[in-house]
């Protein structure tokens, strides 16, 4: 049995005792491989389901296929695994921010099954975010199994996310950058090394099982000066499309949540609407990678109007799928919408300036994808590296940098938080390492409680109180009810100085006459950020803590800031 126990705590092994980074690297390989496998499993199962349903798509009733998929997905999530809908990335970031990356075991498979049902049946969503959730949960549970601490677990969660993205796109750098830019939000060597290893492991698993193929191989692009200039316009256009997509998702979700029907019915209705759109515009169905390929290779022959309609139809279909309770992510729809946006922009440009020699529409489709991804995730590096890796070339790097950075900046100006982090920011739950909110969230009232205050009761005379003052090293004295022990108020030495030096008052004044009853007090489960706000607002140096109407100690600003500094040092230690 002791052998099994030592397995659970490898820090006790002599090999790892010298440097725990070795252990993290070993676990990163395991997690990267497992999340890579999960990504391949999801990818293959979506393809199998999509192909299996393909013959039925020619029938008039084919529009119900996405409805059935969305309903089954919703039932699976709500009734069988008891998890909420959604893609799960905010849940991963929230867990990393607030709970040291703890994630439920069921999350390691639930989103894979539900998103397979949604996307495989034709729902407009992507498999990337669900597989990120899955990889992160695999990482979290493996980290818990090995009894890693919070900081190490967070890195391993990042490894899971990186392995998943690397595997699904066959793009290791994108996995690494996505994990650090979006999930962890902290560029540190101690994070980068294990995550890079996990990305390699995830990619290798994908290459071993699916072959080393580039998703959207293309010809070389001959970028001209005009294209560089036009990329600024494309950045603005993709930013507008991004904002439109974000608002559309929010609106459809808002409307959907107001309708009081079972979730699976709601999801089915959304899927049904997508199915109907898909009968006229097949580009909206599923993850849509096939159509991206044809746009990049200039085989998407429809005219400007049809492309523009397809662009808005895809936005609407994605909003319906995800807003009504279908399961899936925004990554793949962003790529499709981005390529449609790039194509629309190119064709409009070609009509307005027919005499100029533009590179070609495939290049603009690529740039559009980068603009959408960067704007939606507000993660420019992820957008840049993803496009470079999935297209296998650096020759579009200059306009790519322009489109990604400008689109991110514009989107950030209009929507200060990215799609993934919006809800967390609104609730004040995005606590990035090293920030004020994060440091305070890692401290609690019981940790900072000072208990050396001497309490007095309200019926004590001033003369007796003078003796108490002599024994105390504090200048505040909590007053408690003599019988019940209830907290009644405070006596500040500063406010009773005039009485102290008048000995005539010693037997004439009771403490209830001089105590301050209008006192700000806090409770043990209050957030320290709120407590610090109260202290700043009211210019207090200390504040009493009360539980069940009884005084239990004080929080002083000096102790709080002292602990804050120590915690900050721990959090920013590399």
């Amino acid at each position, binding site marked *: *049995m002791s052998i099994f126990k030592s397995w659970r705590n490898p820090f006790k092994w002599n090999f790892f005792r010298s440097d725990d980074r070795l252990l993290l690297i070993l676990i990163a390989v395991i997690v990267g491989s497992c999340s890579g496998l999960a990504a391949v499993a999801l990818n293959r199962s979506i393809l199998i389901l999509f192909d299996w349903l393909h013959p039925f798509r020619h029938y008039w009733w084919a529009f119900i296929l996405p409805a059935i998929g969305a309903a089954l997905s919703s039932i699976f999530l709500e009734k069988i695994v008891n998890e*909420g809908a959604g893609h799960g990335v905010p*849940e991963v970031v929230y867990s990393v921010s607030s709970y040291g990356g*703890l994630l439920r075991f069921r999350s390691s498979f639930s989103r894979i099954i539900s998103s397979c049902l949604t996307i495989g049946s034709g729902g407009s969503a992507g498999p990337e975010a669900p597989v990120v959730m899955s990889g992160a949960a695999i990482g979290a549970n493996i980290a818990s199994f090995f009894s890693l601490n919070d900081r190490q677990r967070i890195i391993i969660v990042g490894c899971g996310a990186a392995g998943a993205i690397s595997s699904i796109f066959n793009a290791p750098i994108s996995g690494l950058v996505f994990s650090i830019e979006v999930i962890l939000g902290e560029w540190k060597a101690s994070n980068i090394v294990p995550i890079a290893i996990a990305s390699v492991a995830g990619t290798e698993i994908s290459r071993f099982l699916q072959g080393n193929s580039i998703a959207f191989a293309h010809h070389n692009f001959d970028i001209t000066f005009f294209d560089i200039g036009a990329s600024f316009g494309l950045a603005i256009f993709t930013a507008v499309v991004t904002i439109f997509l974000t608002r559309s998702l929010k609106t459809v979700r808002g409307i959907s949540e107001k309708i009081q029907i079972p979730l699976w019915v709601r999801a089915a209705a959304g899927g049904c609407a997508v199915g109907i759109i898909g009968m006229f515009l097949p580009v909206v169905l599923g993850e849509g990678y096939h159509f991206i390929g044809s746009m990049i290779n200039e085989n998407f022959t429809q005219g400007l109007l049809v492309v523009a309609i397809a662009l808005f139809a895809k936005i609407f279909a994605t909003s319906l799928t995800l807003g009504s309770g279908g399961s899936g992510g925004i990554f793949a729809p962003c790529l499709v919408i981005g390529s449609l946006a790039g194509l629309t922009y190119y064709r409009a440009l070609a009509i307005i300036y027919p005499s100029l020699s533009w590179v070609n529409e495939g290049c603009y489709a690529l740039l559009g994808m980068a603009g959408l991804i960067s704007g939606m995730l507000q993660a420019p590096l992820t957008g840049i590296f993803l496009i470079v890796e999935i297209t296998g070339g650096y020759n579009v790097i200059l306009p790519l940098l322009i489109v990604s950075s400008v689109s991110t900046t514009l989107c950030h100006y209009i929507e200060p938080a990215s799609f993934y982090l919006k809800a967390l920011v609104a*609730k004040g*739950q995005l606590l990035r390492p090293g920030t004020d909110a994060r440091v305070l969230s890692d401290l*609690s009232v019981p940790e900072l409680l000072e208990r050396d205050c001497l309490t007095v009761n309200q019926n004590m005379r001033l003369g007796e109180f003078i003796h108490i003052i002599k024994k105390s090293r504090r200048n505040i004295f909590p007053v408690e009810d003599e019988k019940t022990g209830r907290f009644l108020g405070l006596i500040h030495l500063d406010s009773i100085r005039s009485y102290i030096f008048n000995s005539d008052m010693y037997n004439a004044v009771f403490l209830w006459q001089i105590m301050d009853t209008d006192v700000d007090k806090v409770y*043990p489960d209050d957030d320290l950020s709120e407590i610090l706000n109260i202290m700043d607002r009211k210019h207090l140096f200390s504040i009493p803590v009360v539980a*069940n109407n*009884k005084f239990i100690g004080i929080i002083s600003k000096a102790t709080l800031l002292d602990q804050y500094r120590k915690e900050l040092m721990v959090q920013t230690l590399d």
Partner: protein
Amino acid sequence: MNHQLFHIFRNTPVGRETLLQSIYFCNQVGIAPVIYIPKHAKFLMYFKNEVVQIDLDNSYLTAPDTAIQHASELLEQGGFKPRFYTPKHYTASTLPDINTEFDYMCCPRSISDATSKITLGNIGAKVRKIVKAAFFPVLLTSPVFKEWHSITVFFGGSANAVNALRLGLQISDISGMPLNILTRLEKKNTRRDYEKMVQDQNMEDRLNRHLNKWLFFDKGKFEENLYDVPHDSFVVLGAYGHGLIRNILFGSKMESIHSTIYNNLLIVGPNYVANRLSL
């Protein structure tokens, strides 16, 4: 009375009995109850190394409009100012995070197992997870409210049993109720060996002050020995003193006790830390 017991309130007759037990426990031990009235059928508890999702059955969402009133009435009758817990953070919109910084938690015997509504059943998987992960002991109440007049600790010598004995002594100290200990002689240990275990933990003096009787069993089935637990005794026991494999092969004492006696149980898990918050 700065320590707190976390209680999930169910606005049903069964829930009333459970809350009455919690209130009685709080009065005896000198702690305050904090009531959570669920608005969603699931919630998360983030422990140090594990996150546990609790899936409640729909009876916990019964008549939400009268739940606060019913719970308040019972608390006031018990001499407590009603205090309700409102989750501050949500992992998902319908998935609140429940604080784990409590000193005790009252769990129904099984949170989501339908059979527990009519029988004692087995301890539900979620309750077991809470017991394993929590810093606090878990109170499993009897199906119907009954007062208790003594404390019975099951002591088998494991680290968790030592913690249980320490907690039993503390409750006996505060409540003034006599303490009984039940020990089943195992692994060729003699009575003297168990007494030495207590001595080694420096609990002998306290034990002499509170101990009513210490029963040792070496014959009969464990379930038969349980007849000697007074019906009105509050039972304290340690859980998961052994590993998973041993529990699967030979069964768990906690499960046997739980499914055989109707007394209120206080279960001390492997991660229990006495007075962790010490407010």
